[in-house]
């Protein structure tokens, strides 16, 4: 078991009013890891988690498990947790800015699954995971509306979830083909982090998508962003697409990480003093195709 994992729940339970930067030392350093979601590891050509861990343990320091409570966790994730290996819980089914979404049944399920996988923290895209209620046929992923009002609603949801589950909740900037609102994505999340008093999962590939859509350089806005709150980053490949005259990047988790994303990754790793975890999201690709990306990240992390 990772040294910090046993301390996080008692710490939150005993000191719920401690500031995030005071709580931060209790978060474990997970290093470089991989992600999965229900059934992903069984798809043809998918990354074999056990083989990765056996052959390249430094690339599989932890497993980020994408979870819809209605599905639970699959056999591969269960096998990982049965070995006592570190995990994080990546939610796939909560609209953090919709108070109606925090129903008792869902919260019970989250607590039950968290008790089983013992994650270092909860994290996940802070956007819209389902239209309307949480039910079959409603799943999607949309970014938040980038306004102060929406940021405040999201922050309140994060604080609520943290209090209900007793684990840190790290919002992630979601991908999108259309972002509405008058704030820059990083200004939006800076406001969320401040009001929720929490850390951040910065998805560098999603940020690159946003910057490109807005016609901005990859690292625009990073100087003013509270990088000391970045606890985790995601790195993933994307594919450049065109629909009619509209150019966009599909966040397809291919092994080919775009140059814009690498630019962001390099700056954040160099400047985020409290970075604890890096996920290379390549779960649906064979190991050999992923090794160059893992290697580059390990080098950047000093491994």
């Amino acid at each position, binding site marked *: 078991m990772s040294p910090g994992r046993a301390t996080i729940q008692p710490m939150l339970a005993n000191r719920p009013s401690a500031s995030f930067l005071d709580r931060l030392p209790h978060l474990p350093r997970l290093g470089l890891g991989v992600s999965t979601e229900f059934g992903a590891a069984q798809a043809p050509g998918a990354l074999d988690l056990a083989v990765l861990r056996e052959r390249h343990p430094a690339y599989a320091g932890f497993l980020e498990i994408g979870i819809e409570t209605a599905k639970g966790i699959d056999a591969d994730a269960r096998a990982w947790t049965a070995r006592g290996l570190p995990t994080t819980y990546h939610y796939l089914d909560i609209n953090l800015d919709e108070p109606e979404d925090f129903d008792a049944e869902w919260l019970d399920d989250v607590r039950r699954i968290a008790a089983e996988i013992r994650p270092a923290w909860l994290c996940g895209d802070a956007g819209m995971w389902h239209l309307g209620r949480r039910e079959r046929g409603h799943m*999607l992923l949309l970014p938040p509306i980038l306004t102060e009002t929406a940021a405040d609603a999201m922050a309140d949801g994060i604080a609520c979830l943290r209090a209900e589950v007793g684990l840190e909740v790290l919002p992630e900037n979601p991908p999108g083909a259309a972002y509405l609102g008058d704030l820059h994505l990083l200004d939006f999340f800076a406001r969320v982090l401040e009001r929720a008093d929490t850390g951040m999962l910065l998805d560098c590939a999603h940020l690159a998508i946003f910057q490109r859509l807005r016609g901005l350089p990859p690292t625009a806005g990073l100087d003013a962003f509270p990088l000391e709150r970045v606890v985790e980053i995601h790195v993933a490949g994307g594919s450049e697409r065109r629909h009619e005259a509209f150019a966009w990047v599909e966040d397809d988790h291919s092994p080919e990480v775009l140059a814009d994303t690498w630019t962001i990754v390099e700056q954040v790793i160099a400047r985020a003093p409290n970075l604890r975890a890096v996920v290379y999201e390549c779960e649906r690709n064979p190991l050999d195709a992923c090794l160059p990306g893992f290697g580059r990240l390990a080098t950047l992390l000093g491994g």
Partner: protein
Amino acid sequence: MSHLALRRVMIRMLHDPLLVEAIYADPVRALAGDEVTAIERAWLIATPRAAWGTDPERPARVLAALLAEYPATARVAGEQVATFFASSQFHRTVRERGSLAQALGEHLAGAAGSLAAPLARLEAAIARVRRAPRAAPPAPPGSLRLNPHAAVLELPRGSLAAFTALRHGEVPSGLGAGVEGLLVLRQPPDGEVTVEEVPEGLAALLHAAERTAARGVLEVLAREHGADPGEAASILDGLVRDAVLG
């Protein structure tokens, strides 16, 4: 909560190209029923129109997932299926944070032919009990009510037979005269949903329990439909034991 209203407009635009067209042509008119501001309307139309179509397969994918719960109705609903995302039921449901499965049922019920409406009501009830919470709050002491994982319907006679035939890929017979009472029940623990015909008196009893009812009132109703005093209590006990009433 204007941001939520705006996001719901985005969702509708991702599924309904006709709405996209209407918004870009005349945003004030197209969004007259939505709580979005002038600035928010400006954000929408400042977005390249093609951005709403980057996943053109999405509507078909969502519809296929929803239709998996309407296999019988879909076979008799004809072209009504294809117009779901342009329907008032779809747009109202997204606006009101409702259930797309229920909205599709309402939409399919409007298809031509005598079978579509009863089959849509039946499959909508199945979808509804499938989504019911695992645990329902108990009725007040001395009262009973139909559990949310149960539903009772009165449909034209022959509806259940037509439903069964269509689900087995067979040609259904027509509907008969009169009505039949059907109990739709999600069985614990695996969530399988069953549909069975119930006698008229039992259907009336279950209808009466759709809203919380005093146990004594339900016993009187059972006696009115032919049960003797001891039998009425026994019927109610059995329904509680089977988790139909709680």
